């Protein structure tokens, strides 16, 4: 499987770039806390679909870029995404065949792990100020999962990404 030529790597990177753009897109103050963690969602999809193309290293790199992009502590998103990625990678064979709502539950769990690591890092470096809305992106992330799945699966089939 991994001997097959990589195809459509550009599509993967462009979609991740799209996720990075979405995460800093200006939104009205009211809905900003509900913005889903797009890079995490997109990475979960790609790792589940193509674990031999997108892996822990990719997740770590995206996390590092995300850290610079949002000006957070360097390495915190990188660590969170890398750990989330390895959890997804070890269970991708099972989750791939789940119905969508069960997958959404799994995504909820993964996003919670991701957010927990972020909170843990922020807490241990004394940068944790506002805990009461941290659940919001996790829940909206779960609700957006079916659409992310639909969109990225369409892209993957349309451009025959392998």
């Amino acid at each position, binding site marked *: 499987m991994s001997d097959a030529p990589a195809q459509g790597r550009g599509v993967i990177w462009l979609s991740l770039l799209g996720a990075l753009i979405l995460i*800093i*897109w200006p939104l009205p103050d009211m809905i900003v806390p509900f913005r889903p963690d797009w890079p995490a969602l997109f990475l979960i999809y790609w790792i589940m679909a193509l674990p031999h193309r997108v892996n822990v290293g990719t997740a770590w790199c995206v996390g590092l870029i995300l850290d610079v992009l949002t*000006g957070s502590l360097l*390495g915190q998103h990188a*660590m969170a995404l890398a750990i989330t990625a*390895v959890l997804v990678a070890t269970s991708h064979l099972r989750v791939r065949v789940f119905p969508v709502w069960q997958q959404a539950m799994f995504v909820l769990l993964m996003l919670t792990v991701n957010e927990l690591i972020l909170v843990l890092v922020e807490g241990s*470096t004394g940068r944790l100020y*506002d805990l009461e809305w941290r659940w919001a992106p996790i829940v909206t992330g779960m609700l957006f999962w079916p659409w992310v799945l639909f969109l990225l699966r369409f892209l993957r089939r349309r451009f025959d990404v392998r």
Partner: protein
Amino acid sequence: MATAFGGSNKRFGHGPSPLVRVSLLVLLSVVIITVDYREGHLDRVRSTLSLITYPIQLMVDLPSAAFERASESLADRRQLLSENRALRSERLELSARVQRLESLEQENERLRQLLQSGARVGERLLAAELLQVSLDPFRHRVLVDKGQRDGVHMGQPLLDADGVMGQVTKVGPFGANAILITDPSHAIPVEVNRNGLRTIALGTGDISRLELPYLPNNADIRPGDLLVTSGLGMRFPRGYPVAIVTEVQRRPGETFAQIHAEPAAALNRSREVLLVWREDGLPFDHNPLMEDMDDAGGGP
């Protein structure tokens, strides 16, 4: 667990197993986090990586910038004329005020000479724009379109037309991150303009509110008082407006009064901002007096 990892190892092809790989990456992350937390040594890494991220940020800013340009160029004649008229009258008023300010500055200089205290250093300003980019949702951070290339440095004060906005926290080659005065981790030394009472204003996480928790109940402060920078933290130049006191609650049972203030700057509205330098090019935390004191202390 080991078999699960071993099993998926074949899928990943050659190279280290995902468990080894993730352990190494987590270790690396912890090291990076620790070094970055201890301040400083990763600035170069960050500014190199910002060469990748700055284009993304510019791209996100593009639509709102384009919208602004478009609405400028599509404004009709009557609107432009009325705006022009308003600006002209404002300019007249301001230049009248500046005339008086100049004579006051001269007088101040003479008085300071009489008191034999050092002359105040002038300031240089550079206009910059905020990129319309949403950074950390739980913190008050902004992105400025000027960076190292324009001589921006860490800790540099950021103003808008009405008052102090914040200070620069991270500098990249083309852009810089700044923290607003309302961020919960920000504190700014201020004084009451009316009587020179000094204190510290803390950010609250609410974009329209600052807190002054360190004033006793009997402090001479009341709603409507203007708070200006005191220049004592060696970060901000002296005498710029910071906030206006909105609420003073003197609680008999407590030692300290509860005082709230509203930032003078339009923190979530202004796009045009100003960066300040000292005229002699030194950072604001350079204080010759302090060095003398250090020398005196270290001497004997």
